[in-house]
């Protein structure tokens, strides 16, 4: 086909410009900020301080390590549960049954709901005076609810369940998309060979889904690592910083204390971790081998 050489560049130009200005340049400037003392509220103190922010972060800031550990725990638990439940949900809504389209719309719908809105809904549900535990207690089931979000023992499971509500549907959508690409012949052939339902799942479905599972798990891990809005509004990182993730810590340094220099150093630590995930993702997705 006759093409003008400049045409593709003209077509991607707007995207390229936006990416350079709002993604590439900010990353570079985070690197620069991280080497500076830069607090909006104390501009007279601002200046180049080398690696001082990083020294402070690694050796003098227990909250940095605490947020890192919580981030890891959060990602591991959240993504693991989302994978299992999402796979089960995808398998269910991939079956043929009456009302399937309706069921899909309903069970997927929380995905469309934002972090803040999810928080609003679940705060109503968890609240000791308005919530579901109070209601259940009235019916004689369980104890009258204490505040699950204010109690250090229950805040983690409560936060995990809330994010599951929103996250499982998205996992299910991803996996459903891949389930639908499995040719039906494979199942028929397996049935003819005498494979039962479980055997068909193990020998046909799982191998076919393997790539999608690996890649969506990695992608989801990154997204859950980056998740801020839900935890920020649900617990604010509390009680006693128990649910503060690294990005949330960064956001609070930026939004609350306007400490841009130190916040940038924390950001760099986050980038190092994300870099590891990105490389893993690109290797596993065999990027470039198809192009």
């Amino acid at each position, binding site marked *: 086909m006759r093409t003008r050489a400049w045409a593709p560049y003209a077509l*991607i130009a707007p995207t390229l410009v936006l*990416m350079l200005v709002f993604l590439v340049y900010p990353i570079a*400037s985070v690197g620069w900020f991280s080497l500076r003392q830069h607090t909006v509220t104390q501009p007279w103190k601002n200046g180049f301080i080398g690696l001082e922010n990083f020294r402070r972060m690694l050796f003098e800031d227990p909250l940095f390590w605490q947020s890192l550990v919580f981030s890891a725990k959060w990602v591991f638990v959240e993504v693991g549960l989302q994978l299992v439940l999402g796979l089960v949900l995808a398998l269910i809504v991939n079956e043929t049954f009456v009302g399937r389209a309706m*069921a899909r719309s309903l069970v997927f719908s929380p995905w469309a709901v934002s972090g803040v809105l999810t928080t609003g809904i679940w705060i*109503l549900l968890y609240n000791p005076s308005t919530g579901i535990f109070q209601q259940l207690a009235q019916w004689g089931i369980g104890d009258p609810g204490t505040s699950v979000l204010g109690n250090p023992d229950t805040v983690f499971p409560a936060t995990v369940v809330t994010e599951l509500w929103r996250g499982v549907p998205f996992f299910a*959508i991803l996996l459903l998309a891949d389930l639908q690409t499995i040719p039906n012949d494979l199942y028929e052939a397996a049935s003819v060979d005498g494979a039962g339902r479980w055997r068909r799942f193990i020998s046909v479905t799982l191998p076919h889904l393997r790539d999608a599972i690996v890649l969506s798990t990695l992608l989801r891990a990154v997204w859950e690592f980056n998740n801020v809005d839900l935890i*920020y509004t649900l617990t604010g990182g509390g009680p006693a910083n128990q649910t503060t993730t690294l990005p949330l810590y960064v956001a609070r340094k930026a939004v609350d204390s306007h400490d841009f220099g130190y916040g940038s150093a924390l950001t760099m630590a986050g980038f190092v971790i994300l870099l590891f995930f990105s490389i893993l993702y690109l290797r596993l997705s065999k990027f470039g081998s198809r192009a």
Partner: protein
Amino acid sequence: MTQTLIRPEVALDPPPPPPKRKKHRDPSRYFRLHLPLVLYLLFTLIPFYWMLVFAFRPAGETALVPWPITLEHFDTVWNGIGFGLFFQNSLIIALGTLVVVTVFALMGGYALARFKFRGQKVFLLALLCTQFIPGAMLLIPLFVIFKGAGLLNSLTGLIIADTAFQLPLALILMSGFVRNVPVELEEAAMVDGCSRLRAFFAVTLPQLRPALVAVGSFAFIGAWNNFLFALMFASKQDKFTLPVGLSYALGEFNTDFGALAAGGVVAAVPVVLVFAVVQRFLVQGLSAGAVKG
């Protein structure tokens, strides 16, 4: 009209297998399929229902089925707290982002799918890598940029920020869709004397309608829900979006659960409606190649 005129997206789900073994009610199906589905539906819907109950129930009541329903909470949030204005702001931002993202994604997606050009691989790699960059971690430099450009407290600024963060994924999705439209159709039109541009608008674009719906709704939902940027870049109350307004309601109207729930309903209804309509395109869009790069 003939079979070929049926729109392609109808073929998304494999056709239901012929009822070859219509067993007389396989009881294990209830445990395997219906029971877990019902349980999951409960998990999904109870929180929504809880919100609806509080939004429509008069203050002080405790009935689980609100009757008679009241609209006083909606009056409070819409007129009293200003959710009417927040709704309008959110709508402007979401529609603006939808338009810009869809147009740019269409351009770029077409370029990726139909041309081979130097730097294509690097560009695609860059697009993929953006999926790993957290908006929250770029808040600091973005704030500085926005301040310098005079874009703080402006709806335009938020449209630009949302566009920048959503465009890469939208573009990847769109290129998958374009690739699924046979290039031969376009070529045939060009042999018939169409210019490339004309061939695109006359032949390819109509085929891309489901793609436009999917990508556009992604953008709409994403922008409608964006919280951190709006929180950070729009600090004046007349520029608040619904998520920001709602987050303040979480903190400040701690005792007025009816107002909180009504605000939630106002914020939820548009996105949930959009989502219900487009979820099948969504599944299709993801199979078109987003996950596999």
